[in-house]
């Protein structure tokens, strides 16, 4: 998947009523793209039959 751009992130934030500054926006974009990359390997796991419930005792 292509990286999100600062404009993409601004639009997503605006939908939630969030208004990051220009200074914030670049770093938020880096953080979000890093998170999505780090989660990408989950697509290779057999998750379809796994219930997403918190495993609290």
């Amino acid at each position, binding site marked *: 998947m292509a990286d999100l751009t600062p404009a993409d992130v601004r639009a997503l934030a605006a939908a939630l009523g*969030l*208004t*990051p500054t220009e200074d914030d926006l670049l770093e938020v974009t*880096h953080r979000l793209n890093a*998170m999505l*990359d780090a*989660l990408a390997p989950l697509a290779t796991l057999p998750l379809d039959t796994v219930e997403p419930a918190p495993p609290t*005792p």
Partner: protein
Amino acid sequence: MSAPLAFTPATELAAQIREARLSPVALVRTYLDRVDRLDGTLRAYITVCREQALAEAERREQAVARGERLGPLHGVPFAVKDQIDTAGIRTTAGSRLLADHVSTADAPVVTRLRAAGAILLGKLNLTEFALGGTQRFPFGQPRNPWNVEHDPGGSSSGSGIAAAAALAAVTLGEDTGGSIRSPASSCGAVGHRPTWGLVPRAGCIPLCWSMDAIGPITRTVEDAALVLSIIAGPDAGDARMRPRAPDDVLTRLRDGIGGLSIGVVRELTLGADMDAEVRAAVLAAADVLGTLGAKVEDVSLPLVPLAGAVFMALADSEGAGLHQAWLRGRPGDYDSATRRRLFAASVLPTAAYHQAARARALITREVLAALERVDLLLTPTQPRPAPPIASGQARVTSKADAAARFFTRRSYTTPFNLAAMPAISLPCGFTAAGLPIGLQLAGRRYDDATVLRAAWAYEQATPWHRRHPQD
């Protein structure tokens, strides 16, 4: 001023007070003197309850003189992370947003420590809202007592500092993803994250409902066990807490570890990201546990390197959900790193969150399956010693920079948060530069007693807990 007195284990301080060999007032003054002398630099405290503590110490001293029945921490000063409510004393969560927030009631953990006779000395510094990564601390930059240019770990930074530098007898922290164990490791203290559900969460400003856990940071394993034995137990107001008291972690502490099996987690000890001195110290600790009678073996947990990212997707999303109103209305009152982290979590796609929730279930299954084969899992608490403060204050400059900073190191502690397990960090050595190294032991849910028993056995066999930072 007596440094040896301040560093004396809380169990021994309490015994001296019970036997009228030590005055609670003198003990409180000893710690207040140290706070006055050292905390201008270390910044462990946000609020020091000087007058209240001295008045309470007077009452405790009178109770000893009257021969009253005394609690197990009678007259012993404690301090708590400033995320935990204390009646009439502000609880800031390390944020300007709560700079004037004053609770009307003590959290149950504080109530229980007071009922045990302990004296509240103050409220301890933390990364903003316990998130980690704060760049500008509104109540002062906390510093590592072993080298003040280095980070003390977080988010319970002040709790780690106060324990290691003897600015309180015992402390409480809170651990969502490693926030007790990280400062314990960085500062050379003992930090125990209890099984989720063992210690009441009420009165603790939340970050992540399903992983937040209050626990002790102390200078010895026995002190951690004593504090845990006091704060653990059912909470009538919280149906998700365990409805019965914990096993007696104190009476089993000295049972020895003969016959215990301990799995050294391969992925977290042999990774390329691991500092060589940390690896050597942790593998040496495994050898020591072997000589004490444990059966030490290799264990592979292939999914745990994903734990850091899975944890952040879940915990940050929960945190972002809690903070939406302030993120919209008062974004400028957050530290910039907190605000950016919460903004990023706010816009994380829901599908990614749900994948992470499923992955959490898989990681949990893998870790719990390993604990059907061995009694404990062993890892370093952190892959590297405490970094310089300046390195954490630099802004994130790229996707690769963010990835390098945030995910890998969290994979060392977060598997056990995701799986709701108990885990402890205790000192297992020092780098050539004199920074502490932490050993982590994790156990089965509600088997905190075995975790503490193994930690105590290791501690007694090694000299690390007897080293203290220079004033």
